[in-house]
């Protein structure tokens, strides 16, 4: 039904256009305007339309930008995000003013200087003073923007502070996984050849640092403390994008990337601020990676520092949840592995069983 309506509409539209076309052509011939250099009627009509267009679109632009301000500006929840938002709005003011002035000139000139038979254009081929002015002024304005931007960029991409909480994020088709260093504050080595259905990270269990690493389902980070995301990918490019933290960094197979930041609002605070009790920080993917690109969601919870500590304490190491992998730990490190991973209190039996198979590793 809808299709038929659309079709009929289209046919009608075409018919109307054809009619306009024929009539205007006949009129032109009848009035002899087709012989004139410039068709005055259409010319001033077009000139007026520029003014109308300018007024209407500026109206819409201001109306939408002001009324929907809250909708299109997501709240910011990181220290550097406040700075980059600041830069964004500074640039918006500068470019916004240029945008408005140049468009007013464009539309106004179009109207004002429309063709008049009796008048003629000004022969004005160049003027060095003007040209120097509008080379130098944009150059200065841009320099200022560049230098403020450079400073912020350098600070953001500077080395993460020593005490930063390290969180590893790995992208794969089509989800994220996260790994924490555990008590030793050190992420264990990994090797993509060790990846299997359980060991999704390819954790290298010959490295002591792996024993206490844990892999929770969502990311928790402490409010007000520096956090370092160590980012990698397992198959194709992905990109970690946390809109509220103004954070984005590609996940590249074969190369680790980093982004550190300081979250400034806990999830609870954000729920209050947005008035949305369901609010959650999210990570999305912004590098095309295949069929499920649009669905790579990971939750981030920003805790108060003490809640974060509590949460950390509750986490069980990956090894303790995947005991069979103890077999991959070299014999001389087994004890240490059990201790570090919190496997102490488990039954001896299965472990020794695995040990024999493990020897062949």
């Amino acid at each position, binding site marked *: 039904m809808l299709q038929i309506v659309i079709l009929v509409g289209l046919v009608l*539209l075409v018919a109307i256009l054809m009619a*306009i*076309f024929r009539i205007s052509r006949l009129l032109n011939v009848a009035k002899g305007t087709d012989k004139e*250099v410039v*068709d005055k009627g259409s*010319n001033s009509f*077009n000139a007026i339309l520029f003014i109308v*267009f300018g007024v209407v*679109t500026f109206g819409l632009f201001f109306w*939408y930008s002001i009324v929907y301000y809250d909708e*299109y500006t*997501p709240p910011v929840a990181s220290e550097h995000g406040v700075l*980059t938002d600041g830069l*964004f709005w500074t*640039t918006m003011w500068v*470019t916004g003013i240029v*945008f408005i002035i140049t*468009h007013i000139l*464009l539309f106004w000139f179009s109207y004002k*200087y429309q*063709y008049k038979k009796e008048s*003629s*254009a000004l*022969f*004005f*081929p*160049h*003027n060095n003073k*003007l040209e120097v002015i509008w*080379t130098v002024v*944009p150059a200065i304005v841009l320099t200022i*923007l*560049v230098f403020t*931007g*450079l400073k912020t*960029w*350098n600070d953001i*991409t500077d080395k993460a502070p020593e005490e930063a909480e390290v969180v590893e994020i790995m992208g*794969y088709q089509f989800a994220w996984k996260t790994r924490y260093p555990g008590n030793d504050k050190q992420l264990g080595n990994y090797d993509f*050849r060790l990846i299997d259905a359980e060991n999704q990270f*390819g954790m290298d269990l010959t490295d002591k640092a792996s024993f206490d690493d844990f892999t929770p389902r969502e990311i928790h980070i402490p409010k007000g403390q520096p956090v370092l995301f160590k980012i990698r990918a397992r*198959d194709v490019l992905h*990109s970690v*994008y946390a809109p509220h933290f*103004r954070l*984005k*960094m*590609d996940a*590249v*197979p*074969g*190369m680790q990337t980093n982004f550190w930041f300081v979250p400034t609002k806990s999830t609870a605070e954000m729920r209050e601020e947005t008035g949305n009790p*369901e609010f959650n920080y*999210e990570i999305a993917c*912004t590098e*095309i990676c*295949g069929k499920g690109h*649009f*669905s790579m*969601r990971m939750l981030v919870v920003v805790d108060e520092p003490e809640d974060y500590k509590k949460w950390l304490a509750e986490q069980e190491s990956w090894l303790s949840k995947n005991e069979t992998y103890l077999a991959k730990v070299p014999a001389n490190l087994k004890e240490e592995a059990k201790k570090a991973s919190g496997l102490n209190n488990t039954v001896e039996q299965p472990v020794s069983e695995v040990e024999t198979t493990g020897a062949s590793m």
Partner: protein
Amino acid sequence: MATANIQTPDLAHDVHHDHDHEHHDNFITKYIFSTDHKMIAKQFLITGIFWALLGGILSVIFRLQLGFPDMQLEWLRPFLGKWITEQGKIDPEFYLALVTMHGTIMVFFVLTAGLSGTFSNFLIPLQIGARDMASGFMNMLSYWFFFLSSIIMLSSLFIETGPAAGGWVVYPPLSALPQAISGSQLGMTMWLVAMVFFIVSTLLGGVNYISTVINMRTQGMSFSKLPLTIWAFFLTAIIGLLSFPVLIAAALLLVFDRSFGTSFYLSEIYIGGEALPNMGGSPILYQHLFWFLGHPEVYIVLLPALGITSEIIATNSRKPIFGYRAMIGSMLGITILSFIVWAHHMFVTGMNPFLGSIFMLLTLIIAVPSAVKVFNYLTTLWKGNLVFTPAMLFSIGLVSFFISGGLTGIFLGNAAIDIQLHDTYFVVAHFHLVMGSASFFGLMAGVYHWFPKMFGRMMDAKLGYIHFWLTFVGVYMVFFPMHYIGIAGFPRRYYSFTNFDAFNSFTDLNAFVSIAAIFTLGAQFIFLFNFFYSMFKGRVAPANPWRSTTLEWTTPINPGHGNWPGAIPTVYRWPYDYSKPGAAEDFIPQHIPYSQTKESNLPHENELIKLENEGDVVIVNENKH
């Protein structure tokens, strides 16, 4: 200036002169394997229009998905077959294929081949006063390589596994691994093969444009008298010649990685349940190579449009283009700078942040020549006597898009701001305005302006006005709202936004954009009708319908092979003598000597009259043979 007049005499004069009157072509040599630059230009134009239509339709299909995620698209099954899922929706993988093909088609096939191919071919010989391109045969090859490339790219749309789907930038590993996405199987191979032929076509064309401009200008046509169109095409060809080979290299290495087990771009990959043997490659390497072309490509697309509008705005303002030399200077600046800003597409790819700082600096420098161009356009309009032909309207539209889209580039060029905006709809809005719509308007302006020269008939102006206003309004309705969606953080290349709380809004605005896109596409049919109708039934064109100064209007209304039946006119003055004080008419064509315009000459021009007489001697000689 005075000494620059001495030119290499045009050898082509003599070669062609006696036989071009009775040049009898058969159908095949006239319309298909033609070596006449005008016919080749038309071939590029028609092919480009076909691609533009297809690219537009693809975008409307994926806009349906974005604007109306719940819509039943069962009715598309006859066209898309199994890419419509059981639920009557577009398959998410096919969505990516649509986006990829849309981008590839628009950037390369429409705005590179369709724009440069058409107007460089058509205008270079006509405006510099040459009988044809330096090599008509290479020129013909250029079109047919493009045609071959088109066939391959088009066929890839219909294969079982679907066309390439890794985005128009086809980043590996996604594009290198057939198991990563089905578009990376045969579709990707065809994409690469098609692009190689495409590049061959571009290079053949480019070599021709450059050598023609350098060697075949008519008597008196020094570089400082070249119309800005020619300057733009010339610089565009140079950019293309220097940057496209790098894309070939990038594509070749990708072919190796895909088919011969090398690891240029691949390292440490575990996919589909197995670890691949590749080690030591870098996906970042591909990105550097790609954007070394990719960024200049933006200017390959844009510069011809800017050249075209400079010409049209000057003509229809009845006023010299303001700052002719500054315009050339800024184009030169853009040309050079366009090669050293590529990594601004890679701020957050894990590239060394120090490099990011450098590229940010260089990027914002390139904004200066762009700003200069805008101010010069505005000053050209100031105190003009503006005639709103459809071409003029589209040119003014281009200036508007160039401003709107150019300004948002200042955000994206700032690495700190780009962290948030990268790969969001803000970027989509930005490049569609500054590169997509601006260049598209340049193309349209060019078609309306030179249609009389191409087909000897006029397009209907009223339909042109309607076409312009609907398109101008439509483009802003499509792309302006995308800024808001982008500032809100919506990522691009997303099939749907419902998975995220952060992006679960703006459904109304997205629906609005989609309706506007359909509306805008619909408006193009007015143009199509006007174009084809006028080709056969349009009012017969006068010799110089826009009362323009450049040489192409001195040819017969329907120029034959060789362009001028007699001698090629000699050029005495720059192309922008509009509304010169004292002159009888408000334009003085380039081939009118100063000795005939004593009433309007500036003091230094009177001195040039002496030199002209020497020039005349040469002309007289030439006419005698």
